[in-house]
């Protein structure tokens, strides 16, 4: 029972790290970036390529992976999202065009990854981070799981602090609250949106490296299942809400873990988990902390 709780906390951290970037880009920049999973793959891929040539430690590789994801997001914004936003004024059409563009970008990144990984699972060199399992009081946890846990807490707490206390953070919240009015207060909405896409991409890239290490490998499609979970987390948590995303991520992980751990074999685990999500949405359609969503509506 306690081991499964520990499993759920680690899984929840993974979901948080992956979902926060998607939530921020969606909530602040008003961009549903369907290439978020591909940026996650980009983080793992760049780490894999770098680690083949140089045995750098995780502390050095993490910023490299984060930068790969972050810069990937900025390139997408410069080449596609911003031009689309400038050209299409109708909000519904703009959203559809951006979704399509991000889907296309994801396909390009995944295909590059396919070629570079020779269509197969690749492992990031053990020299980057050798996995060790610690056994104590009948429980077990790996060193990479501890890194994921700590990093998630630091990132989530840092983001909350930055959004609430810093001038930039308050400006970001202003853009999320009303993108049209924000420029009247001297806020450059385009620049802040790009910053949030960069931050989200960095989180995706870092998560890609950490997950590829924890799961002993990655393939070009390993972002896809996380995208599905991230959608659930972001919608339950409330689009753009850091606190809501964190709560939803851990809640989903707990539900999934206990279903897998204790339900009789043969019951479709994911169907039960998603049935519970539907139930939550029926009871609270705006999500756990759906302030932004309510304003957007």
């Amino acid at each position, binding site marked *: 029972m306690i*081991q*499964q709780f520990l*499993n*759920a906390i*680690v*899984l929840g951290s*993974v979901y948080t790290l992956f979902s926060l970037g998607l939530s921020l880009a969606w909530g602040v920049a008003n961009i549903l970036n369907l290439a978020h999973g591909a940026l996650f793959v980009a983080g793992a891929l760049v780490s894999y390529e770098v680690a083949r040539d140089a045995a750098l430690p995780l502390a050095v590789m993490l910023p490299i992976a984060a930068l790969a994801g972050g810069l990937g997001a900025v390139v997408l914004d410069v080449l596609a999202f911003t031009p689309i936003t400038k050209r299409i004024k109708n909000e519904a059409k703009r959203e559809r065009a951006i979704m399509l563009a991000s889907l296309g970008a994801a396909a390009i990144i995944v*295909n590059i990854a*396919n070629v570079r990984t*020779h*269509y*197969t*699972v*690749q*492992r990031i060199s*053990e020299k980057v981070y050798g*996995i060790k*399992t610690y*056994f104590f009081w009948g429980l*077990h946890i*790996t060193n990479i799981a501890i890194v994921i846990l700590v990093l998630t807490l630091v990132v989530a707490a840092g983001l909350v602090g930055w959004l609430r206390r810093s001038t930039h953070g308050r400006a970001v919240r202003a853009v999320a609250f009303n993108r049209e009015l924000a420029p009247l207060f001297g806020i450059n909405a385009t620049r802040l949106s790009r910053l949030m896409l960069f931050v989200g991409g960095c989180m995706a890239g870092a998560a890609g490296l950490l*997950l590829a290490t924890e*799961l*002993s*490998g990655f*393939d070009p*499609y*390993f972002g*896809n*299942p*996380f995208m*599905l*979970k991230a959608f659930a987390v972001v919608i339950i948590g409330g689009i753009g809400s850091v606190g809501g995303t964190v709560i939803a991520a851990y809640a989903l992980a707990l539900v*999934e*873990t*206990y279903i*897998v*751990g*204790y339900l009789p*074999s*043969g019951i*479709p*685990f*994911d169907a039960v988990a998603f049935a519970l999500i539907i139930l939550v949405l029926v009871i609270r359609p705006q999500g756990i902390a759906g302030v932004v969503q309510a304003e957007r509506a």
Partner: protein
Amino acid sequence: MVLAILAAVAASAATAGTKTAQAGLPSTIHIPVVMSQSGAAALPGTQLINGMQFAASQINSTKFLGKSKIVLDLNDDQSDTNVAFRDVTSVVDSKPPAFMGPGVSALALTTAGIAEQAHIPYIATEAVSSGLRPYVQRGHYIYRLTPPEFNYQDITFKYLAAHNIKSISILYVQEGAAQTEWATKTVPPLAKKYKIKILDTIPFPQTQTDFNALATRLAQEKPDAIGIASFSSQNPAIITQIRQSGYKGQLFGEGSFGGNSLVGAGSAANGAIWASDYAPFMTYPSSVAFTNAWRKAHSGADPLNFNAEGFDGLWFLAHALKRANSVDPAKVDKALEALVQNYYNGAIGKITFKRTHDAFSPGVLNMWQDGKPVRAAG
């Protein structure tokens, strides 16, 4: 030299009576290939194609078909049923002498009927689920050159019984036709035969990424061995997390353990066993010839089972083309029908057909050890 030996071995297979005159064959024979080059099945798909291309280069360089050369026309089914359906429809409309069909069981099943209706011979490789069985009986146009897994899984259970395994738990990906069949249809009768108790059979969705909860559950059940039937890309995470949970028992699997998919699991995969139709350590003469030729052409790298299967598929078709001395699909089908009356010495060893269009081979038991498969002893 190796090429010549290989061509001789391949040419000797079940081809008695083949005439050498190739007057009926055009200078270029286009063989369509519908295979997954992207999507979830890109790994087996591209490796099957590599095997076919290697076969084509041998067929052409050894002038096996005289002045005629085989050219493969590749179509990417994207691991998607709808795309495969569209591709195969388009391929049969072009009336090729035959074509190499999708390697994914579900896609092969969907498209077999199209070839059947169009009367175009369809060479299936790797599509190993039993769903194709009705199509690979005599009188049909589908020929499967990769033996279905249930034909040689007995050797895995023989090994488990010999190593005092009394109980097992099974984990399988529910969206995989071959994996589901292995877990729910192949394993139970074999476990019964060898008096091994099945403690649990757990399906999981293909979207599952974290296996810690499942690993904890399995470790708590304390089976002597855990059987795993997942997609290749999931194997490293499953095996690593099972070992991280403290489980020290035997791990065994099915075809998805092949194709070097255990590399990512590192030392956690050491000792894991699985049966396959081909392994580089096979000693059957035609297998040795293939392995050596492949290594020579690929800087010493070992071929994968997918390479061997693709290789056999195209060479078998080349024999039929030679026998038919024509690219007319009806004549090629007649030649294929004649070939399956006998055995065939392929890269995967001696293939028999037992009065069907379906391949049977004894299989070999692999054990993963320090980054590569070795023969499992005893």
